[in-house]
């Protein structure tokens, strides 16, 4: 033993030394790469720094949720890209979850047709590479949409065309009051819920919580419309001719086809994995649990809600967290179809225009890391909430 030779008998010191060596080796490797990069960049006349974030970006972006044009800074362009990434991820996660749960439950259906359709859906969509699905939705499916002048009209207030989906724009007055009322409604619902729980636990009384909550959510904001001067009008998209054969829509909001295609592809693809998680979760709950629940007189809905789902969720949540993370990271394939996410806008255009590869790629990686860790943390919190509470 080398440690014996070195006369290190103290166990603590023996345990620490290998760790210290590992950390030092790791540090030296990092410093080696950093120094090497710095020296080589210096030799080639490449400067390093983050000052460019304040420079004028001077390129425009198709679609942005905050005010942006080329006169804003690269930092602002980063924010636009980040918000677009978050937007498509949230939409994707929302629909992937809904489709995934429906398909997962359908696979267990007693109805042969429904079960088979769900099975085929899963097998087809999870076995085709995501990038091909994105191309399919963008270049094949959306290409079949008509030009603006022949747009598919929904009651003349919304139009689906190859240039995007034009929907009415909401124009609010006193939006703040409305927003506050919605928040107030949610707080009220929280108290109603805890009151109902207390009633049930103490007196065994079942209150119609869902109906009461729904009524609160509708009534409180409604009051602001009637008495507090909140109003909502719509601006409808109108066809506009630009030249003899070129048309577009003016007014309203345009949901760009890139967003539609990407959200579709991401949610259809990820839903297959979530569906399998849901199926595994439900199958993972012992048959005896359902039988026991039935024997104490719970009805079918109550069995699902009170007995099966709480146990199934514990199995479903951890792998589904992975799928949410995958979806968020997969949204970086957006660049292929010109959806202005953080990779296209920041790690693409901004990188090209400034040439600051190391800075921009590091920022982008850190951003994805932060996004992923945030989702993980939220899901871990949710998982803990759903876990068995040992009393």
């Amino acid at each position: 033993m080398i440690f014996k030779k070195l006369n290190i008998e103290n166990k603590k010191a023996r345990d620490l030394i290998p760790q210290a060596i590992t950390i030092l080796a790791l540090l030296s490797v990092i410093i080696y790469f950093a120094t090497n990069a710095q020296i080589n960049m210096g030799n080639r006349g490449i400067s390093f720094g983050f000052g460019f974030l304040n420079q004028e970006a001077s390129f425009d972006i198709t679609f942005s949720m905050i005010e942006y044009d080329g006169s804003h800074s690269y930092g602002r362009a980063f924010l636009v890209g980040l918000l677009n990434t978050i937007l498509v991820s949230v939409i994707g996660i929302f629909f992937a979850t809904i489709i995934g749960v429906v398909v997962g439950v359908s696979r267990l259906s007693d109805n042969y047709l429904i079960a088979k359709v769900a099975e085929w859906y899963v097998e087809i969509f999870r076995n085709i590479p995501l990038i091909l699905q994105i191309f399919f939705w963008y270049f094949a499916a959306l290409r079949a949409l008509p030009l603006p002048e022949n747009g598919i009209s929904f009651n003349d207030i919304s139009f689906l065309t190859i240039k995007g989906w034009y929907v009415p724009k909401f124009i609010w007055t006193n939006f703040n009051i409305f927003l506050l009322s919605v928040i107030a409604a949610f707080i009220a619902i929280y108290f109603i819920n805890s009151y109902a729980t207390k009633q049930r636990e103490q007196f065994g009384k079942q209150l119609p919580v869902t109906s009461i909550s729904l009524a609160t959510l509708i009534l409180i904001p409604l009051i602001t419309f009637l008495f507090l001067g909140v109003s909502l009008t719509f601006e409808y998209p109108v066809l506009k001719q630009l030249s003899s054969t070129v048309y577009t829509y003016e007014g309203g909001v345009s949901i760009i086809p890139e967003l539609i295609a990407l959200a579709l592809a991401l949610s259809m693809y990820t839903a297959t994995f979530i569906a399998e998680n849901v199926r595994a979760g439900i199958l993972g709950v012992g048959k005896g649990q359902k039988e026991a629940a039935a024997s104490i007189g719970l009805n079918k809905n109550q069995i699902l809600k009170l007995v099966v789902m709480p146990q199934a969720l514990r199995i479903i949540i951890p792998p589904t967290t992975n799928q949410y993370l995958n979806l968020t990271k997969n949204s970086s394939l957006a660049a292929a179809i010109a959806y202005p996410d953080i990779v296209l806008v920041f790690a693409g255009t901004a990188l090209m225009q400034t040439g600051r590869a190391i800075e921009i790629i590091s920022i982008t990686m850190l951003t994805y890391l932060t996004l992923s860790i945030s989702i993980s943390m939220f899901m871990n919190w949710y998982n803990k909430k759903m876990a068995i509470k040992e009393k």
Partner: protein
Amino acid sequence: MIKSIKTWILVGFASLLLVACGQGGGGAGSKKSKTLDNTKKAGFVKCGVSQGLPGFSNADASGNWSGIDVDVCRAVAAAVLGDADKVKYTPLSAKERFTALTSGEIDVLARNTTWTLSRDADIGLTFVGVNFYDGQGFMVRKNSGINSVNDFKNGISACTNTGTTTELNMRDFFNSKNISYEPIAFEKADEVVQAYDAGRCDTYTTDKSGLAAQRTKMSNPDEHKVLPETISKEPLGPVVRQGDAVWEDIVRWSLNTMIEAEEYGVNSSNASSLKDSENPAIKRLVGSEGELGAAFGLDNEWSLRIIEQVGNYGESYKKHIADTGILPNRGPNQLWTKGGILYVPPAR
């Protein structure tokens, strides 16, 4: 004894740092060219090209690259290695190109790249010359009723490539005309063509040579036309890494040789027979007078090999751009003696 371990680690750590410095330190300042040595050792020129732009750099079905940008790399290979075919082509997107060059993945970037101040000065690149004078234009559908950029109206959607000067020029142009527009920027040229062809956008904007070349890829090329206006200057040329002056000179003078050869009427078929020419300028071009190659550490036949194996600029242009129907008219890319702006410093 813990101390001695610490000392070892410190020594190891310090030597690692020294190695790091040693590796990075070489190259700058000395007359020798690291890139040239590496190229000779590897036996091929590492050349970055486009992912397929007819006339400039395009691969045929069997993977053979051709085009006027490709010819720059072939010229360098002929000069340095004696064989124009000894080139390894790396197709790059607009976004990847500069990083590929500064990181050493390629040694010459010949990929219809616009020479601008910030690219030249700020990100470790050096432009060595111009092999095509271009300008940005717009393509529209013939039946659109748009006959000039003055017919553009608020709300027009424009497709282009991301990571290009085109994206910036487009904004300058629409802003100066006070037109609001929808910019849609794709990573690959093929995707821009597909989206424009499908009707996602009303106009497609890039360098005019690019428009002419990409039009051939449309499902029905005759339905499209390029508007007459040119909204920017786009001098396209080969690029090298900053910091290797000898390599920079080799690439610059390989291109200059092709242009000067055309000026003096030296071409691939008559070059070797002009060794005894009366004109000293021609004799220098074909290597029978002077010791010009020695300046870069090459032999004296380097320029003769370029002309014999690759041809002069006129031959290259005719073969790749004119005869393919992309831009039959040479426009500004004509010699200065014939009304164009191609003018290179003398090789002497």
